[in-house]
């Protein structure tokens, strides 16, 4: 299936060189991607994205609405997306927990929406103003049942901008919720952000159905497994539900349809994983130790990697841009060639376990974990690299 692409609508693109924090860069990325509907609820440390959107959207044309809670926010996004408008919200830990219910609905209804989680220390109210990476498993498994999502992890305000556009493109391409899993540090970090001219920004269009109206089936998989979509008000008189459903979108409550329906929403991501997954490698081909990192931690790890190289250790870096679907093939391939993995992250080993699973025992995995509130000291990572290299 060929993907339909076009350049960005210049109305939303603030072309130029800016000095922005990660939260603002997410709002600008969304506007550049064509997002015209934002429903959200204020929560530290993500609120600046909502504020920026509220300020900018009246000048671009669209809707900002502050909802009564995060449950309502995601419900509103799904409604808006069915009306054909690209939609997003932003939150942090406690709000993310509230969103889980309708994230499941978006997966089941196969609706493109984008959610940014500016992570803070958890659980519960935790550390509202301090960083964390503790929601990496929640984003993958937080709603009930089997499903698949896509999650990206930016490590700078520039990447917040770039990956927000990518998030919208993937979301439209696969009819799936896409998450920008950033954190307080990147969210509040000010750096140079280059916003290119609109014609240089590639936008993926939704897979609109164009056949006869009475033949439309909202959940009939196309060759790439992603069904075509229509929008409300165009006369298709379609039905969609959070219940297990058939190709028509009609509820069918039995094991056979459940198997078809759930495998379908999982397979369209799993079988397209190679096309979705993006990572950055540095000297992994000659490495004995590979540091697997993502988000803010990859920037701290970079210092440790350089120091280790100075000390004569052959260290490579595998930085995850896409955390979900997880690049398990890449990890397994590296595992067969290297001595060990080192996984620094601001949680107690969420992605470390995933690396272990993918490495299939071919290489040991050394965690560098803490519970949040600060970024790693590069020396702590260096220490573990040295230990792993022994």
């Amino acid at each position: 299936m060929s993907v339909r692409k076009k350049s960005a609508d210049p109305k939303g693109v603030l072309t130029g060189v800016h000095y922005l924090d990660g939260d603002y860069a997410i709002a600008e990325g969304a506007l550049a991607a064509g997002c015209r509907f934002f429903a959200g609820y204020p929560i530290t440390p993500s609120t600046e994205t909502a504020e920026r959107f509220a300020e900018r959207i009246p000048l671009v044309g669209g809707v900002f609405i502050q909802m009564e809670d995060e449950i309502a926010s995601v419900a509103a996004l799904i409604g808006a997306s069915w009306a054909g408008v690209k939609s997003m919200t932003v939150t942090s830990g406690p709000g993310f927990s509230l969103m889980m219910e309708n994230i499941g609905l978006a997966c089941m209804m196969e609706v493109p929406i984008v959610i940014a989680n500016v992570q803070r220390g958890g659980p519960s109210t935790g550390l509202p103003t301090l960083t964390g990476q503790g929601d990496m498993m929640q984003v993958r498994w937080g709603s009930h049942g089997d499903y698949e999502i896509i999650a990206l992890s930016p490590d700078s305000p520039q990447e917040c901008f770039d990956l927000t556009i990518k998030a919208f493109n993937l979301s439209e391409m696969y009819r799936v919720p896409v998450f920008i899993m950033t954190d307080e540090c990147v969210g509040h970090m000010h750096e140079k952000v280059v916003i290119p001219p609109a014609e240089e920004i590639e936008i993926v269009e939704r897979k609109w159905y164009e056949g006869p109206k009475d033949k439309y089936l909202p959940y009939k998989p196309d060759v790439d497994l992603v069904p075509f979509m229509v929008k409300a008000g165009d006369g298709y008189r379609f039905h969609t539900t959070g219940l297990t459903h058939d190709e028509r979108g009609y509820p069918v409550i039995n094991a056979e349809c459940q198997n078809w329906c759930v495998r379908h929403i999982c397979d369209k991501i799993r079988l397209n994983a190679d096309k979705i997954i993006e990572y950055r490698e540095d000297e992994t081909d000659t490495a004995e130790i590979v540091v697997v990192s993502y988000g803010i931690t990859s920037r701290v790890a970079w210092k440790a990697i350089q120091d280790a190289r100075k000390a004569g250790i052959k260290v490579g870096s595998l930085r995850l841009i896409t955390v979900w679907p997880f690049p398990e093939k890449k990890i397994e391939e590296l595992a067969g060639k290297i001595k060990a993995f080192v996984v620094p992250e601001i949680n107690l080993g969420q992605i470390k376990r995933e690396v272990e699973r993918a490495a299939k025992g071919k290489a040991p995995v050394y965690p560098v974990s803490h519970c949040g509130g600060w970024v790693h000291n590069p020396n702590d990572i260096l220490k573990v690299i040295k230990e792993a290299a022994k």
Partner: protein
Amino acid sequence: MKPEDRLEEKHPMEEFLRMDRMPHIWCSGCGIGIVVTSFIEALQKSGLDPDKVCVVSGIGCTGRVAGYLRLDSFHTTHGRPVPFATGLKLANPELKVVVFSGDGDIVGIGGNHFIHAARRNMDLVVICVNNFNYAMTGGQVAATSPIGANLSTAPYGNFEYPFNLPYLAEASGATYVARWTCLHIRRVTKSIQEALQKRGFSFIEVITPCVTLYARRNRLGDGLNLLRYYYENSEIRHGADTRTLDIGYQGKIIVGKFVDIEKPTFLDCMNNHLRKVLGNKYQPWGVKS
């Protein structure tokens, strides 16, 4: 002649029903189907383009309405049809968006969304079928269950104060508020039609029998007995003070149209305010230029 060609076997409302999903799941004696019939009739009379009408339901017996209406129809999560409808309406203001769900869905689990949508005067029609209990899950106590009624999670009788829905709707900012029982078919139809033709947050409560659970547990008889109860105990009092509309167990039901006022909607307020503040820089949304 093939059976499908026989005119008399065609349901007169077939254009608006998903006949391929019949028979429906509602019990005999249930009132939801009556409200659906009233809705379709109101829609036909309203002159609205059905292709531009969306129905959003939540979870529960009434939550199944979206699945049977041949319109763009959305069966969402429990309690969330109002915010879902909010997104749908704001993203495409040309749509007429109707929330069709039950009392447990709209004012139980979804109560917070309900009051906020009313407060914003979101341009939605909310039809709330009130059967005094959580019927889909087996007759549990609800935010609308009258004091003294027996429910499966209030086996010794309910002792919680129930919501007075028209009062809640008016106090929250609704611009149209009516209550009927499903016995008042023509009046339900008229209210829905008025709401469809009006802009703003419209709320219509329709009291219906739940024969299988509420009536059985309380030994109130069958559907006909309950309609007789409505007939004998409901009193039409248009414009009544909504503070006086509490419903006691098997008590009097005051019905009527209580509120019908004009007030700018959320989108009116947004467009007017931002145009005033930002002038020509403002890019209006959903306004035909």
